[in-house]
């Protein structure tokens, strides 16, 4: 008998991907630290075998409800992080369980913060850390371009979907998954090859390549990319730009389609914002255009690579980078942030409200790639934005209460929710978490996961909790009423007697 469950089916698929990745990391580590390689190999093989067997017994439902899909996404990320933490702690890569949890959350959420000591960690561990980011990026893309628009098949959720262009890349779920896998893997392979050509060794090229394609930003070095040459920096900048632009842009480039590239409003805004951010940093602070551009694209693609200690560039540059990180990437990218398209639509909506003050009956149309969005969609986007601000605000408070400085709390919350990682204050430009106290590190976990899940699953989780609470309250009221009636009946029976 097959179990029909969307959450379980997606969990098993993700488990299979993680299992294969862990196994490959174990195999790649042979010859460096054989104990680690063996441990990771065994865990990877066991996970792969278990999920392969379970896959035959579980099937996704034909038409899952929105609530269950979102809740399933939340569950999926949570289980992945716990699995990663168990691997780090179980294999002794990170001694403490809380450190393992932070590292795992940073990996799967594609955040460029780490506790791993690259000099001491084995090749297997470094590759596993990079691979968790790659798997996290893959799942993020699949959720954005396959799950939301195809599985939910709901135009009412258009604010979270990819619009008309999505139908071109993802005509149905199975084709979409296949194409995304091919494109994402191909792009990663291209990045690794380019890094090899730029002079990096095979392991470094693989680690940095995985970190670039997934916008994870992990390099396995304490100074990120600062120690590498100009060629590597150029490859990283182009790679981050493409990764931040998203899977649709890669699809158009692969198919040789120039016209969608020109017509895409989102791409135009993304490039424009990058140019403005670069110019703002370079002109105001007399910083080299190359470094300014690199950091702008690193922050906006939410990768988190650094070629210099940008925290010393001054307050205005920091604010520009903060805003770039908050806006984030294009839809269909493994990166985080509010997303360029949503920011643009919200701007259009705000402008419309301004005009409506003068003419209350004005028909204000907000369009996305030729589609006119309904007021309902815009309202949902508004709710989404409020939730984003609430998440960042409560995250900053959580960090502040955990003993992090005011600057570190604000920057750290924006950076963690946008899945960037590095921040001004205690975390620093290279994303080292040693400067942060243990409560502060743990406070980053829900923020990174909240940012990675994106807002809808998070809201759905809240919705489910509220619903359970409401049902529980109703049930308890019902029970108490029933008990009262019984009590009253028994009393009246006694009186009659």
């Amino acid at each position, binding site marked *: 008998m097959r179990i029909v469950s969307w959450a379980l089916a997606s969990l098993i698929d993700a488990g299979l991907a993680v299992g294969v990745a862990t196994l490959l990391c174990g195999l790649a580590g042979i010859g460096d630290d054989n104990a680690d390689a063996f441990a990771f190999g065994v865990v990877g093989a066991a996970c792969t075998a278990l999920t392969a067997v379970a896959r035959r017994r579980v099937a996704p439902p034909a038409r899952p409800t*929105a*609530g269950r899909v979102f809740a399933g996404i939340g569950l999926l990320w949570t289980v992945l992080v716990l699995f990663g933490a168990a691997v780090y702690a179980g294999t002794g890569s990170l001694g403490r369980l809380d450190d393992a949890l932070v590292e795992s959350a940073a990996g799967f959420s594609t955040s460029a913060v780490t506790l791993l000591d690259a000099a001491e960690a084995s090749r297997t561990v470094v590759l596993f850390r990079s691979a968790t980011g790659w798997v996290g990026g893959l799942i993020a893309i699949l959720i954005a371009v396959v799950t939301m628009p195809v599985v*939910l098949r*709901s135009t*009412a*959720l258009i604010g979270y979907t990819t619009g008309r262009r999505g139908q071109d890349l993802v005509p149905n779920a199975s084709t979409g998954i296949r194409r995304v896998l091919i494109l994402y893997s191909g792009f990663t392979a291209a990045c690794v090859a380019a890094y090899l050509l730029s002079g990096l060794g095979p392991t470094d090229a693989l680690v940095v390549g995985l970190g670039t394609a997934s916008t994870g930003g992990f390099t396995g070095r304490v100074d990120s990319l600062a120690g590498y040459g100009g060629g590597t920096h150029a490859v990283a900048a182009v790679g981050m730009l493409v990764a931040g632009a998203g899977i649709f842009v890669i699809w158009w480039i692969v198919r040789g389609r120039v016209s969608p590239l020109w017509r895409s409003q989102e791409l135009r805004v993304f490039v424009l914002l990058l140019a403005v951010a670069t110019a*703002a940093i370079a002109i*105001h602070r007399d910083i080299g255009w190359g470094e300014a551009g690199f950091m702008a694209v690193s922050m906006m693609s939410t990768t988190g690579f650094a070629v210099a200690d940008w925290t010393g560039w*001054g*307050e*205005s540059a*920091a*604010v*520009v980078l903060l*805003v770039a990180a908050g806006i984030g990437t294009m839809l269909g990218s493994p990166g985080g942030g509010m997303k360029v398209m949503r920011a643009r639509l*919200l*701007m259009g*909506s*705000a402008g*419309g*409200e*301004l005009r*409506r*003050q*003068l*003419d*209350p009956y004005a028909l204000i149309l907000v369009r996305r790639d030729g589609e006119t969005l309904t*007021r309902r969609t*815009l*309202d949902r986007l*508004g*709710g*989404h*934005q*409020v*939730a984003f*601000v609430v998440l960042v*605000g409560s995250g*900053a*408070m959580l*960090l*502040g*209460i*955990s*003993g*992090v*400085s*005011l*600057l570190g*709390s*604000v*920057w750290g919350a924006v950076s963690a929710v946008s899945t960037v990682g590095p921040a*001004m204050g205690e975390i620093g430009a290279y994303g080292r978490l040693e400067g942060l106290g243990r409560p502060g590190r743990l406070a980053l976990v829900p923020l990174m996961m909240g940012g990675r899940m994106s807002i*809808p*699953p998070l*809201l*759905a989780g809240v*919705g*489910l909790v509220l*619903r359970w609470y409401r049902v529980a309250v109703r049930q308890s009221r019902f029970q108490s009423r029933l008990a009262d009636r019984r009590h009253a009946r028994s009393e009246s029976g006694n009186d009659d007697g």
Partner: protein
Amino acid sequence: MASRPDPDTPDLDPGLSRGWLASTTLHVIGLALAAVSVGMLACTLLEALTSRRDTAALAVSALLTGTAGGLLSYITRPGVIRKRHIFATVAWTWILITVVGALPFILSGTFAFGGAGFVEQVVNSVFESASGFSASGSTVLADFESPGRGLMMYRQLTHWYGGMGVVVLAVAVLPFLGVGGLELISAEAPGPSSDRLTPRVSETARRLWVVYIGFTLCAALAFFAADGFSSLYDAVAHAFTVAATGGFSVHADSIGHYDSVAVETVAVVFMILGGTSFSMHWRAVADRTLPYHRNSEFRSYLTMLGLTATVIVILLWLENGFPLGTSIRAGVFTVASLGTSTGLSNATGPGSPGDYVMWVAGAQLVLLFLMVVGGCTGSTSGGIKVMRMRVLGLMMLRTVRHTQTPHAVIPIRLGRDVIGEGVVSRVAGFFLLHFLLVISGLVAVTALEGDLVSALGAVVSALGNMGPALNESGPTSNFAVAFSQPARLVLALLMVIGRLEIFPILLAAMGLADRVRSSRRHGPPFLHQVSRRLGSIAGSRSDDV
């Protein structure tokens, strides 16, 4: 006997006005300037009777402002008023009042300390004036001893004018001129909708002013009694501040100067009442009942203040290591001050328990949240307002429910009332613009030399008409230390934008852009009107000849 015109009728009886230039904007500006000059005159008298240091500066300012106001209101008459003109009227009135209101500071050389040049003095004066009229309370004043009592009282009075709005004052006069004031009230009054007490705007404005004056008198008496009847001047000055939820004080260490629990308690009570809708106060007085507990916004407001005060007291007690009594005193006062967008401080000096920049980051972030929210709609406080925050929260909850049931129709309710989708959209738009202004302001201020935390605090504080901010712009410092001159001007502009609830200034800017565009085609509209008028005069003279 001529009957009085309907105050809500936009068309005018030309016989009632002597003005030949039809411009509602200029006419309202004229009336507002005249009103401000009355305040300047009163402060001149106080100055003449007390310290006499700045009598001439105040007298000249009153004369110039009064003449300009009188002349403008004399030569202009209200024209046909459209929605675009209303926003322009409100915005330009505030901007001009701010600039003209800086005259006493410039002429008296209040900011001539520390080798400041003329430009810096002007910038500081405009900043202080903007902070006063917007009821913010941010200050660049470092020397509180040199200015005379009249000038310091004028500084407090700018708060009082700004509290309820100079434009509302003009609305009370406008019905005599026949201009519809309802639109002006809704453009000026804080909140998603104006809370009309009566169908007639003039009557509403009159009642609000009665409550406002009564509130100020009560606060003055309470301060006077709490301070042991030692200084009526101090009591009145602080009454102006709490009524307007401003933040200026006549002492460098604000309420901390008294180091008195009684004075702080009075301040807390009146700040919380100042952050409450004034129409509710009217109902409480007129109906002799307490309507507060029935108002859902007021309940949310008190809950917010209570919860944040509890969190801060716990943090101060556990994290900062203050004794519990000190934590309660510092926490409750600061929450009441920042939660109502007043900005008074009970810090007795840098590093004292009331100096919240020394508090743990978590507590400061709670204060930042309070700076964003502000008080109730219909009050004199700034910020986004509790009502709007509730709508935004409900909007987010609706999005939560839509993730479960995407097609459900879920209305947003406040109390028992369903809020129209138009209002919800407007609130969302307002929040977006507020958010955008915070980011733009942050970029501008940091680009003009200011550290990130101070800049974030100052921008949020300016837009929320709060006063003191974080870090270098905290309660025991001043904005001249933390920010460059251009950054101070940006913050002054943000204060005015925040006071007018964002929309009027942006719409006025849009209107100005349209005018510039149209004047390129047809020539300036005012010049066109003036030349037509001169032409008609010339024509009538030639007829006489």
